[in-house]
C-alpha cells in the first residue's frame, strides 16, 4: 500500500458538504438518495467515497456539479461550499464556470465521455479556447504539454487521433488531461478505472496519484473497490443507503474499521493468499482441450466485402482435472470467453479437439451435441440478462431436464431442492426473476446449471457484476457446492483475488494464448512469465491484507 500522506494538509477544506439531502421520485424504493451527508475534502488530498451500488455515492458527486436528473431527483437540504460559495445557490452561469474551470470530472467510460467525431487534441483545445485567452499556438503547446504530463506516447500523434484510434487506457489519459487543463482545485473521478483492465487500471491509478501530488489538487474518488481505495486514498468515506457510515484516514479504516458494515465490506474482499493447498497431480481429466483455434470474422457479406478475421483463440491446450477448479485468467480480449463458448458449444472452433469425459465434441452439430449437453453447464456473468424475465424461476431451472425427458412435476420438485441447496426459498419456483436481487439471481443461475447434473461447470465472470459483499457469498457457495458434489469447474475471471479464492490451478491467457499454467500457490509465489508478474503487480491494494 502506498503510504498515506502524513504532511499536514491545508486546514481550510476545498469542498465542504453539509447536511446534503437528495430526494428521489415518489416511485423509488426509498425517499432519499443521499441523506444528511457531510464530508470535507482538503487541498492535496484524495478522498475515496466507497459504497455498494445504490449507496448514493454517484448521486452525491453529481449534486456537487448540479448534474442531477432534474426534476425527479433534486437536492432538498444542505450546503455545498466550494471556495466560499454555496454551489446549490449560485446562478447557472456561475455554476457552468465553476464546473469546467475549478472543478472537473472524470467518468467511468472514456469512450462515451469523448466525442467520437472529434480529434482528441481538438477536444482538449476546446476547453482552453472557451476558458482562456491563449492564442491557437499557445493552446496547442499547452495541450501537447498536458498529453506529455499524462504520459501519452507521441503527444503530437495522439493530438490528431480520434477516440476510437486510442486504447481504453489512452482515452482515460486524455480525459485526465482534459480534467487538468484548467488546473482545477478539485477533480471528481467517478469509478474512473472500473471499465479498464487491471494492468491499465494500475497505471491510471499511479498517474492520478502522481499528478495529484504535483498540482496539489483535491481528488474526490468514487469507487466500489477496496483494493483501489488501499492503492490511492488518503481518507475514506464509506456510504450505505445514502448515509455516511464511517470516515477517516485510509490506513485505520482499512486495517481496523470501527463500524460493523465497513468491517463486513473489508472482510468480503477476497484475499490474495491462495486458499486451496497445492493439489496432488491427477491424470484423470474431465475436460481436455487440444490445440483449439477460433478466428472470428472473415465472412464475406452480402456485397462481397471480406473482413479480416480476428484470431481470438490460438492453438490453446488446457486440462481440467476431475474435481478441480481451474481459473482462466486474462484481460478483456484475451480470448478466455471465446474458449469457454467453444467448450459449451455456443461457438464452433476452427480446429482442435475438445475432449469431454474422453469424447471429442469439437465440430459436432447442435443435434449431435445434444446427448453431451448436460455434461457441461455454464454460469453466466450478467445476473440480469441471464434469466428470461418472462419465465418463472421453476421453468427456468427445469428447462434443461424437461428437454431431456424428465416429467415437468419431477423437474419442478428437483428445482425446489436446488433452490434450497443454493440458499433460496423453495417457494421461489413460482416467482419471476425481477423479484430477486442480483446475488439471488446468480444463485438461480447456479441452480439452473446444477439441474442438469453436470460434470463440469464453466463460470464466466460469475461475480464481476455483483457488489463486494454479495460476491463473497456467491464465491463461497460455488466453492462449497463444487466440493460437496465433486464437480469440476473452469472459472473465467480477470480478478486474481477471485481466482485465489476458489481455484486450485490457474491458467493465464493473453492474446488468444495461454502463457502460463500452474497451481495457484505456485503462480502466486513464483510467477514464471513476465505477463503473469505484471498481472500480479497490478492487483489493486496488493500490499494490503486485512
Amino acid at each position: 500500500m502506498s503510504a498515506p500522506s502524513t504532511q499536514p494538509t491545508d486546514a481550510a477544506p476545498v469542498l465542504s458538504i453539509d447536511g446534503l439531502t437528495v430526494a428521489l421520485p415518489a416511485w423509488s424504493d426509498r425517499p432519499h438518495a443521499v441523506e444528511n451527508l457531510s464530508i470535507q475534502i482538503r487541498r492535496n488530498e484524495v478522498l475515496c467515497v466507497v459504497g455498494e451500488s445504490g449507496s448514493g455515492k454517484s448521486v452525491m458527486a453529481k449534486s456537487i456539479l448540479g448534474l442531477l436528473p432534474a426534476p425527479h431527483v433534486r437536492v432538498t437540504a444542505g450546503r455545498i461550499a466550494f471556495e466560499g460559495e454555496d454551489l446549490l445557490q449560485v446562478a447557472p452561469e456561475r455554476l457552468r464556470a465553476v464546473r469546467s474551470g475549478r472543478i472537473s470530472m472524470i467518468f467511468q467510460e472514456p469512450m462515451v465521455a469523448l466525442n467520437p467525431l472529434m480529434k482528441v487534441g481538438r477536444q482538449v483545445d476546446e476547453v482552453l479556447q472557451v476558458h482562456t485567452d491563449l492564442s491557437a499556438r499557445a493552446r496547442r503547446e499547452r495541450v501537447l504539454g498536458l498529453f506529455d504530463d499524462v504520459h501519452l506516447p507521441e503527444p503530437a500523434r495522439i493530438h490528431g487521433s480520434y477516440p476510437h484510434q486510442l486504447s481504453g487506457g489512452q482515452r482515460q489519459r486524455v480525459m485526465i488531461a482534459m480534467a487538468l487543463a484548467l488546473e482545477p482545485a478539485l477533480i471528481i473521478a467517478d469509478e474512473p478505472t472500473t471499465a479498464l483492465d487491471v494492468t491499465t487500471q494500475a497505471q491510471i491509478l499511479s498517474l492520478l496519484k502522481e499528478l495529484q501530488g504535483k498540482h496539489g489538487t483535491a481528488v474526490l474518488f468514487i469507487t466500489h473497490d477496496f483494493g483501489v481505495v488501499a492503492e490511492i486514498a488518503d481518507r475514506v468515506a464509506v456510504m450505505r443507503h445514502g448515509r455516511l457510515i464511517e470516515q477517516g484516514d485510509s490506513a485505520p479504516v482499512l486495517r481496523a474499521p470501527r463500524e460493523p458494515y465497513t468491517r463486513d465490506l473489508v472482510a468480503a474482499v477476497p484475499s490474495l493468499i491462495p486458499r486451496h493447498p497445492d493439489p496432488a497431480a491427477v491424470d484423470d481429466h474431465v475436460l481436455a482441450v487440444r490445440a483449439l483455434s477460433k478466428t472470428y470474422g472473415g465472412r464475406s457479406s452480402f456485397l462481397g466485402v471480406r473482413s479480416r478475421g480476428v484470431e481470438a483463440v490460438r492453438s490453446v491446450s488446457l486440462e481440467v482435472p476431475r474435481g478441480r477448479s481451474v481459473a482462466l485468467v486474462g484481460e478483456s480480449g484475451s480470448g478466455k470467453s471465446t474458449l469457454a463458448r467453444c467448450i459449451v458449444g455456443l461457438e464452433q472452433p476452427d480446429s482442435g479437439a475438445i475432449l469431454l469425459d474422453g469424447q471429442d465434441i469439437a465440430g459436432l452439430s447442435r443435434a449431435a451435441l445434444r446427448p453431451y449437453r448436460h455434461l457441461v453447464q455454464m454460469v453466466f456473468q450478467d445476473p440480469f440478462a441471464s434469466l428470461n424475465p418472462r419465465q418463472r424461476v421453476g421453468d427456468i431451472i427445469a428447462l434443461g431436464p424437461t428437454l431431456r425427458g424428465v416429467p415437468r412435476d419431477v423437474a419442478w420438485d428437483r428445482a425446489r431442492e436446488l433452490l434450497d441447496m443454493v440458499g433460496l426459498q423453495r417457494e421461489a419456483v413460482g416467482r419471476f426473476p425481477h423479484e430477486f436481487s442480483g446475488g439471488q439471481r446468480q444463485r438461480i443461475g447456479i441452480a439452473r446449471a446444477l439441474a442438469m447434473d453436470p460434470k463440469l461447470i464453466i463460470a464466466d465472470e460469475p461475480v464481476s457484476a455483483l457488489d463486494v459483499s454479495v460476491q463473497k457469498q456467491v464465491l463461497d457457495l460455488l466453492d462449497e457446492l463444487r466440493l460437496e458434489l465433486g464437480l469440476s469447474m473452469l472459472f473465467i475471471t480477470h480478478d486474481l483475488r477471485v481466482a485465489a479464492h476458489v481455484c486450485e490451478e490457474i491458467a493465464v491467457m493473453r492474446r488468444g494464448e495461454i502463457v502460463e499454467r500452474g497451481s495457484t500457490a505456485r503462480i502466486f509465489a513464483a510467477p514464471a512469465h513476465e505477463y503473469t508478474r505484471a498481472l500480479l503487480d497490478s492487483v489493486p491494494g496488493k500490499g494490503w491484507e486485512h
Partner: protein
Amino acid sequence: MKSFWARFLGNPRVLAGIAWLLVVAVVAVFAPLLAPVDPFEIVDKPFLVPSGDHLFGTDSLGRSIWAGLAHGARTTLIIAIVATLSAVAFGAVVGALAGYHGGLVDDALMRITEFFQTIPSFIFAIVLVAILAPSATSLVVAIAVVSWPPIARVVRGEVLSVKSREFVQAAVIAGQGDTAILLRQVIPNTLSPLIVTGSLLVATAILTESALSFLGLGAPNLMSWGFMVGAGRSFLRDAWWLVTIPGVAILLTVLAINLVGEGLNDALNPRLADV
C-alpha cells in the same frame, strides 16, 4: 414502481381515448339495434338538417346519416382490425426469422421488406384494390400488404437485441431447439414494442380504408365513413353535416387510437416516459 395497469389507466389522455373507442365499439356492435334501417335505404327527404327526427340529418339521397355512421363504424373497424392483425402476424414472422437467423436469411428477407417500403404505400394500395376488384377482402389485403414492413423491422430489431442476451445462450446450452427458443424465449420479450406499433397501425389502417372508400374503391355494398365523406363532398357549402359528421368521427377515432397507443408506450417503457 407502479404496476403497468396503474400507469396505463392513471393517464387521463388514455382514459379519454378509451372512452371514445368504447363509444365507437358499442355503436359498431349494436348498429342493427341502434339504427335498425339499411344505411342505403331512403328514409326521408334529402338534405334534412340534424334534428329530433333524424339525429344527424339526411344526405343527398335522403339516407339517414346516423344509420350510415353506425353501420360505417362496423365496416371501418372490422377492416382496420383484420388488416392490422394480418400485417402484424406476417410482419412479426418475417422480422423474427430475419433477426434470429441472421446472415443470408436476414439479407434476403430485409431486401424484400425494403422493396415493399420503397413503393409509396397509398398508391400501392390503390393499385392492389384496382387489380383485386373492390371488396372488403381486397381492402384488407391491400392495407395489410402496405403496412407489414415497419412491423417486420421493429420485430427484427428487438429479436436481434434479445437473442444476444445470456438467457438465450442458456437455452442453447440446455439443448432447446431453434423454433422453441424463438417462440418461448425470444418472442415473449419482444411483445411490448410490437403491441405499441400494432395499436398505432390500426389508426393508419382506418385512414387508409377511409381514403380508399373516399375514392370509391371501398367495398361496394358496405357503408363506410370514407364513402360518406366522398359522397357528400360536393355539397360541403350547402349541407355541411354530410361531410363534417363522418369526418369528425374519423378524426376522433384516429386521435383516440393514437392517445391509447402512446399511453401503452409510456406504460410499457416507464423510463422513457420520464425523460
